[in-house]
């Protein structure tokens, strides 16, 4: 047996194993393996490694049951976020046959963002006007006001706070992903995305302020959820567009 001293490197053996070498390139490597004991042993060991890896258990249970916490999160989302998610899912379902391009999708989201802020402003104005009316009505009727040591701080509904935290965490992740991909997007797309984000952020700020003023208003909860969801969608689409270019 004559050993060819020009051993193929590991990358070539790995490519041969995966079938990435052309017949022309594979033939001399196979011939070498037939006469070189050390390369044949490496090739065999490589096969053993890949076989062992593919034979590793596909299922590993987490050390503790995650369902209890998960269920709580899902219940919270069911109450607050799901309606808007369902609407968006319905939108996706309708668009599967003629899915717009990502660029067009961003333009559509920009329009949606404008609609959202108009809607948000209208609802906020309505809510604030109602609040003013209530204040005016209550002032018109003399009542005894007990002096309190502190002014109660405006807070969001408890159930929504956790949802908002999850939104913010995901938004932060997507924002980071988009930031890394900005260089791959055209200046026009970046401008559109930035404008849309600014609009959605305004809608979020406004809806949030209105919800703080009227924490029991479910319509405002839905509106704020929809605004966050809109921002998520915009960032997600932008991220997908960036990763494709």
């Amino acid at each position, binding site marked *: 047996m004559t050993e060819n001293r020009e*051993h193929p490197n590991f990358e070539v053996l790995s490519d041969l194993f995966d079938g990435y070498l052309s017949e022309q390139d594979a033939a001399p490597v196979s011939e070498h393996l037939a006469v070189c004991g050390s390369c044949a042993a490496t090739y065999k060991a490589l096969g053993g490694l890949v076989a062992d890896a*593919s034979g590793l*258990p*596909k299922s590993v249970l987490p*050390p503790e049951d995650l369902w209890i916490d998960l269920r709580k999160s899902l219940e919270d989302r069911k109450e607050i976020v799901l309606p808007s*998610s369902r609407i968006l899912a319905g939108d996706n379902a309708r668009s599967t046959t003629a899915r717009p391009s990502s660029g067009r999708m961003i333009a559509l989201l920009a329009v949606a963002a404008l609609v959202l802020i108009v809607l948000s402003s209208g609802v906020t104005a309505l809510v604030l006007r109602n609040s003013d009316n209530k204040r005016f009505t209550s002032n018109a009727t003399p009542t005894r006001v007990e002096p309190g040591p502190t002014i109660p701080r405006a807070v969001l509904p408890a159930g929504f706070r956790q949802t908002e935290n999850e939104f913010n965490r995901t938004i932060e*992740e997507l924002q980071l992903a988009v*930031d890394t991909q900005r260089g791959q997007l055209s200046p026009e797309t970046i401008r559109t995305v930035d404008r849309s984000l600014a609009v959605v952020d305004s809608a979020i700020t406004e809806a949030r302020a209105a919800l703080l003023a009227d924490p029991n208003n479910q319509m405002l909860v839905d509106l704020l959820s929809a605004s966050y969801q809109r921002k998520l969608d915009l960032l997600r689409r932008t991220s997908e567009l960036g990763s*494709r270019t």
Partner: protein
Amino acid sequence: MPTNLAWKHSTDSMTAVPPANGSPERDDDARLIERAKAGEVDAFEHVYRREVGRVYALCLRMTADAARAREVTQSVFIRAWDRLGSFRGDSQLSSWLHRIAVNEVLVEARSDRRRRARVVLADDQNDEEPGAQLDAPEIAGVTLPDDTETRIDLEKAIAALPPGARTVFVLHDIEGYRHEEISHMTGSAEGTLRAQLHRARKLLMEALSR
């Protein structure tokens, strides 16, 4: 090497995951999904019980960090719940969940890398370790018996791989994705992925031969 993996404990439970109640078969996917879409968390629990093992295994191997794997696993099921409306049933539920899991891990990894200002996936190949460029004959003689002890060694060696190489190895050699699919998921070029896979295999063979 990460020390917070719990493979020894986990291997005891590396079995098919039993459903929560009863034993819904794959044919029941559509019915379960319809019930979950209607807001039935109990129906979604069946999905969770059946699939959490596969999702967690993927998350654990890709992150090499048990705490992060638990967090990402929870995120995967939250995302799945949110996106139930987009599940068409033309792919298997487990495949759909698997894709969400891969995406979640990659998004989490990108965020983590940004936070730590570390190198990105495609640049992992630049921090070559000593010995990684050895020619084939110099790492010959590796034998990989298939007993449990070796399986645990292999898991630990995979966990010790650089993140980029580990990601590609887990997706290609364990989960069976093709480079084309991994390229689509990660945004990395196929050539880069192949280089990462070669590197992972070489490092693993070296680690297991010691």
